[in-house]
């Protein structure tokens, strides 16, 4: 209890908010494993272990207490999001480099929890995406298309580099977003591209259903007041607005809004990545601008940029703009320049 007022202890706690995020991630994660196999578990195990390891090491270096910082789950969330972003069956060293970059450069060099201007998971992801393009674009087919998958032991051996890579090469493929981008550059029509088996009902086999589960997890976050609706709604609206406008003009060579919404990292980004409170805008208007900015940037990067998906870059660019957005979206303080009539 504090010496001066107020004496009411808040019922909410940061640890609880972070735990809510982890809970909300579970349905999407389970769906991911269901559609793509146990490789994700390997990613998660490596990523979380490395994250806790790096966090502990830096906290010790910085002479900070371990318990309060390790028990706030923030490192676990960073690791979890990172593991979801990278391809399955990534080598262990790639995860180590990405998580190391996320925790050290993305988080602690700025002052640690609460002080980082950029989303650490995205910092780590972009670092490995740029550094290791081959490993980062080697994706695996969903089980529906290629049921011949690895079991958990094989997956671990594969990640650790104990097994020869060659024998499973047949399982790899581009992601739907990647394939769409490549095919368009070969002047193929959307109808032609969609004949590829990876596209599923509307946004890619597996991917479209995982996106649904991220959405449901996101609703849980809004329902438990862990996040506010502004950022995801504005982000989805931003994406819809651009994708719909271009789709209406040229449906033959532009992907549908549905495809854009439910493929790649958009849903995960809208509810779990862009909503990271530390790196997002804090004002109501600011959150709408911030979310909208990410939504439109994702479309711009997907449509005109060099990468098939653009959530990470869009989030980092928006993170960069947050101080400016916050500065110009300050609410009118009660009693300061009140409107003349009431």
């Amino acid at each position, binding site marked *: *209890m*504090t*010496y*001066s*007022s*107020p*004496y*009411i*202890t*808040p019922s*909410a*706690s*940061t640890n*609880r*908010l972070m735990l809510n995020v982890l809970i909300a991630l579970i349905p999407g994660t389970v769906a991911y494993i269901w559609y793509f196999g146990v490789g994700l578990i390997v990613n998660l195990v490596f990523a979380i272990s490395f994250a806790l390891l790096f966090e502990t090491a830096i906290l010790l270096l910085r002479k900070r207490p371990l318990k*309060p910082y390790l028990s*706030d789950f923030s490192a676990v969330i960073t690791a979890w999001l990172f593991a979801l972003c990278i391809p399955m069956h990534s080598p262990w060293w790639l995860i180590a480099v990405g998580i190391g970059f996320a925790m050290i450069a993305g988080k602690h060099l700025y002052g*640690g*929890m*609460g*002080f980082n201007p950029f989303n650490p998971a995205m910092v780590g992801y972009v670092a490995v995406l740029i550094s290791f393009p081959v490993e980062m674009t080697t994706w695996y087919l969903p089980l529906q298309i290629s049921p011949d998958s690895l079991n958990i032991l094989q997956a671990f051996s594969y990640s650790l580099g104990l097994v020869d890579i060659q024998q499973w090469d047949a399982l790899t493929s581009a992601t739907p977003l990647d394939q769409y981008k490549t095919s368009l550059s070969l002047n193929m029509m959307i109808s032609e591209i969609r004949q590829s088996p990876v596209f599923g009902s509307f946004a890619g086999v597996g991917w479209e259903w995982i996106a649904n589960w991220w959405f449901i997890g996101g609703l849980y976050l809004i329902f438990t007041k862990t996040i*506010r609706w502004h950022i995801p709604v504005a982000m989805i609206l931003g994406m819809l607005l651009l994708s719909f406008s271009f789709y209406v003009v040229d449906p033959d060579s532009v992907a549908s809004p549905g495809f854009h919404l439910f493929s790649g990292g958009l849903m995960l980004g809208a509810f779990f990545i862009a909503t990271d*409170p*530390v790196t*997002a805008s*804090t*004002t*109501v208007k600011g959150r709408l601008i911030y979310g909208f900015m990410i939504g439109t940037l994702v479309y711009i990067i997907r449509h005109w940029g060099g990468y098939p998906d653009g959530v990470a870059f869009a989030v980092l660019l928006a993170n960069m703009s947050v101080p400016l957005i*916050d500065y110009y979206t*300050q*609410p*009118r*303080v*009660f*009693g*300061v320049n*009140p*409107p003349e009539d*009431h």
Partner: protein
Amino acid sequence: MPNSVYSFHGGLHLDDHKSESLTQPLQIASFADELILKVSQHIGEPNTPVVTIGDRVKRGQLLAESSALVSAPVHAPTSGTIKAIENRSIAHASGQKAECFIIVPDGKDEAIDVEIRSAESTALDKAALLDQIRSAGIVGLGGAVFPTAAKLTTANQHGIKTLIINGAECEPYITCDDLLMQNYASIIFKGISYLQAILQPEKTIIGIEDNKPAAIKAMQQALTESSLSNITVTSIPTLYPSGGEKQLIKLLTGFEVHSSQLSFEIGILCQNVGTCAAISQAIDKSRPLTSRVVTVTGPGIKNPGNWFTPLGTPVSHLINLAGGYTIEKPKLIMGGPMMGLTLKSDQIPVVKATNTILVMDQQEQEIAQECIRCGRCTEVCPVQLLPQQLYWYSRTHQFNLTESYHLFDCIECGCCSAVCPSHIPLVQYYRFAKGEIWDQRRKTYKSDRSRKRHEFRDARVAKQKLLDEEKRKLKREALAKKKAAELAAKEKTEAESSNSQNADAVQAALERVKARKKAQQVDPKNTTDLTTDQQDQIDEADARREKNKVDDA
């Protein structure tokens, strides 16, 4: 019954904990063995005692007053002896001491003789009413303790259109105004009628939070029984801090008082229900303010309730009346859990501002986590500030930025701290920043004043110098003129008489000069009478000089 149609931003739905202290009816507290009566119990100029140690005083007798407009006198709560006038611990954020009368009650509770106005007597005029309110020592009982007469006088100069009676009582645990309204609604309306007589408002609105249905009902009934007009009893939603003056005005009238303004500057005046009751007592019964209703409640007290408490009663006495503590380490708070003051001990006395004694459990001080910028504080702030920015700038000592983020509009209601998931004591940071800025301002003011004084002195000295110079110049000129005139006159007289003498004198002077010159024709050199060695050295030096000249060329 009309409901308020306006709203303010943010606010909090808190567990109101009102029922605990409402289980017992309003009681009258007995006198403690010793009353500790603070000499000054208002905002404004301090009082000076008018009685001395050893004096026997009676209930209602004036003990201390000040001649300043913004002040309120203090009266004896009962009859007894002034045992001492000394510094005692009082309710203050810094735990400081203040001058107090120590009164030992004699148990007779004798009152001074007063002339009680009969119901038939003619109505008092404004000045007489204000005088009565002032001499009864009435201050704002909502907690601000601003002298009521001073407030009314200033407000009257602005002209009041709307009188607002604050019965919101929005903080958790507090029920003293609730019980006062339930039991003494007619007395409150008497007080309101005097306020109306003074201010002549177009309308009067009584705002009560809807978690007090009994109070609302009692007030409405009293309203219908009274002959007063243009009054409405309005139920407002239970949302902390609806009882904040500017929040209540917004709720009831839709007006937003400018941050630099006081409410009466836009024709609105707020008075607490307790103040209205005190005004009625002062005018109808000629009874000065010597007691008030105090809620004693909280999880650490045995029998929570409300007591009419004589001012000066030590908190420990009230605790005993309420059955004592139920916990080992009680934490005492004067006021509510959102804005109350921590008390260092239970020997601190009740003052005019004391609405509640809250007994909480002393918990471990929590370690705050880092701010994650979740923005919950922004959502609940009734002033629509950005608390997380204020926290950031206060913490990093960027006080100029805290000011540009409107730190001084913060009402310290505590909503932000009460929702912070990282449990950061935000309001403490704002108090710290405000304190630092005030301190800085004081220092700036002081140094500015010193500099101005210094500059003024310099200017004054310089000016004096100039003036003196001017004077001297004038004097010099006058003298020169005078001399010239004298010389001219002298020359005139001498010119004719001594022309030949002058010629001789000139000749003689020339001779003298010649002789002096001759005498001075001595060789000034120090190179005469040299030894041969010295001469050799000089020759050598000359040769060297000659050589250097050739070399240079």
